[in-house]
């Protein structure tokens, strides 16, 4: 039926060049070496990871580099049950907001090595890094996060940091 109206499929492919800027370049260079670096706002003292070179709340430049831990708290999450293009792992899997120790904003990443039914808010997790040969200037140098086995974080400690 649709042929009667001349519907044709025309694929589009897009390749981008990404200019990271000073702050993000530093973050990406350092993450390739297995460390995570943020920046502290000189005004509100919040630590941003990844840092973009300015504080979105105060509107001021951020310069002070702060190393944060590669472990933290699952502040919230979803369980992905459907496949989508470019997916790194097979569903079902959990994708979570992870508040790294020392940071004031959560990053979003994959959780593995835990059955999805055991994923919960407050779960303590740590980064599993890719092998040295696969490290790159990307958040994907972290393969995924897995539980640390520590006791869950109390709700009040992360409830405002989704």
């Amino acid at each position, binding site marked *: *039926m*649709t042929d009667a*109206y001349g*519907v044709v499929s*025309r694929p*589009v492919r*897009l390749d981008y060049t*990404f200019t*990271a800027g000073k702050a*993000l370049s530093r*973050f*990406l260079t350092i993450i390739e070496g297995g460390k995570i670096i943020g920046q502290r706002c000189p005004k*509100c003292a*919040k*630590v*941003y990871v*990844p840092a973009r070179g300015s*504080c*979105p*709340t105060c509107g001021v430049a951020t310069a002070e580099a702060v190393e944060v831990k590669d472990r933290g708290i699952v*502040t*919230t*999450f*979803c*369980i*992905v*049950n*459907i*496949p*989508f*293009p*470019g*997916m*790194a792992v097979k569903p*079902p899997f959990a*994708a*979570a*907001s992870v508040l790294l120790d020392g940071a*004031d*904003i959560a*990053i*979003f*990443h*994959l959780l593995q090595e835990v059955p*999805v039914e055991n994923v919960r*808010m407050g779960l303590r997790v740590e980064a599993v890094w890719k092998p040295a040969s696969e490290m790159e*200037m*990307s*958040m*994907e140098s*972290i393969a995924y996060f897995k539980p640390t086995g520590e006791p869950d974080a109390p*709700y009040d400690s992360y*409830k*405002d*940091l*989704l």
Partner: protein
Amino acid sequence: MSNRVAVIGVGQTKYASKRPDVSIAGLLREAAQRALDDAGLTYADIDAVVIGKAPDMFEGVMMPELYLADALGANGKPIMRVHTAGSVGGSTAIVASHLVEAGIHERVLTVAFEKQSESDAMWALTVRPPFQPSTVGGAGGYFAPYIRAYMRRSGAPADTGMRTVVKDRLNALKNPYAHLHQPDITLEQVAASPMLWDPIRYAETCPSSDGACAMVLASESAAAKAPGKPAWVHGTAMRSEPTMFAGRDQVNPQAGQDCARDVYKAAGITNPRKEIDCAEIYVPFSWFEAMWMENLGIAPLGEGWKMVQEGATGMDGDFPVNMSGGVLSSNPIGASGMIRYAEAAMQVRGTAGEHQLDGVRKAMGHAYGGGSQFFSMWIVGSEKP
């Protein structure tokens, strides 16, 4: 302050998963022609055209406003495109209304659309910047964690979202333009549908629709010559917030709270739940009805779910929401915000047909977009402001 503005024409297409019988231009023209007919006008009477849609990457048509100028009778006239992600249908109507309010134009045609059957929204939304991993896929995966956080924060019963879906889809049965018509929908059926992005079930997500919505906005003198009853714009507001900042609350975004406060102030409203008769709110995933009731200050903080559970947002409730069936029943993304605004206008004009409520004097249209970054709202009334 400024000049009065009225909606004097509304046009919609029948929302459907596929409209292979029309091009994008043909789809827009269908809605635009219906709005012009409703206003008793022709393209020649229009001073300017303002259009809106979601990102170009969806349909892969760069700057569609350029090629759509002919189809919308805009050759030689001002035409512009508004772009605020999913809230764009609302912002587009607001920009059009401001052109009249500022006294620049007498009659402005505004149209918003999406042709999702020609689009790949999942692909367009799954970009891979180096500073974040590709994890979730699409809007459902993005919003699911915030719905989970709302559930935890409010302690709302687990069936709250399902109740919103059943209510909206039953409302949609009274709207001939709605995409989904599911006469047999039940709570049990929704509960049994698969979890896509846990805690969001398949049945709790909006459909993927083709469609366009159009309105003619007019000055007070132009409205006086219109054949139908006008809907008067009492207030408009838009707000935004950054995608990421420490302490950002995506369950109850600051920009949404501020936008609501602005629009109530503009419309002279002090008690929105009492003074607004009904609302068309952007609810693409079921739980957002409860969440937005709190964000808009209609329900006290932590109690939006009670309005859903008590039936307050139903057709016979004290604050009916989404009489048309809402985004949960039709989602041509770029048009979805404008549909909310148009349906609010239809309610105060008394032209909503089978889903018309009695005696609506003030109605609200609401849209949000991006990662809850953009908000746009308007309040329309049956009487001049």
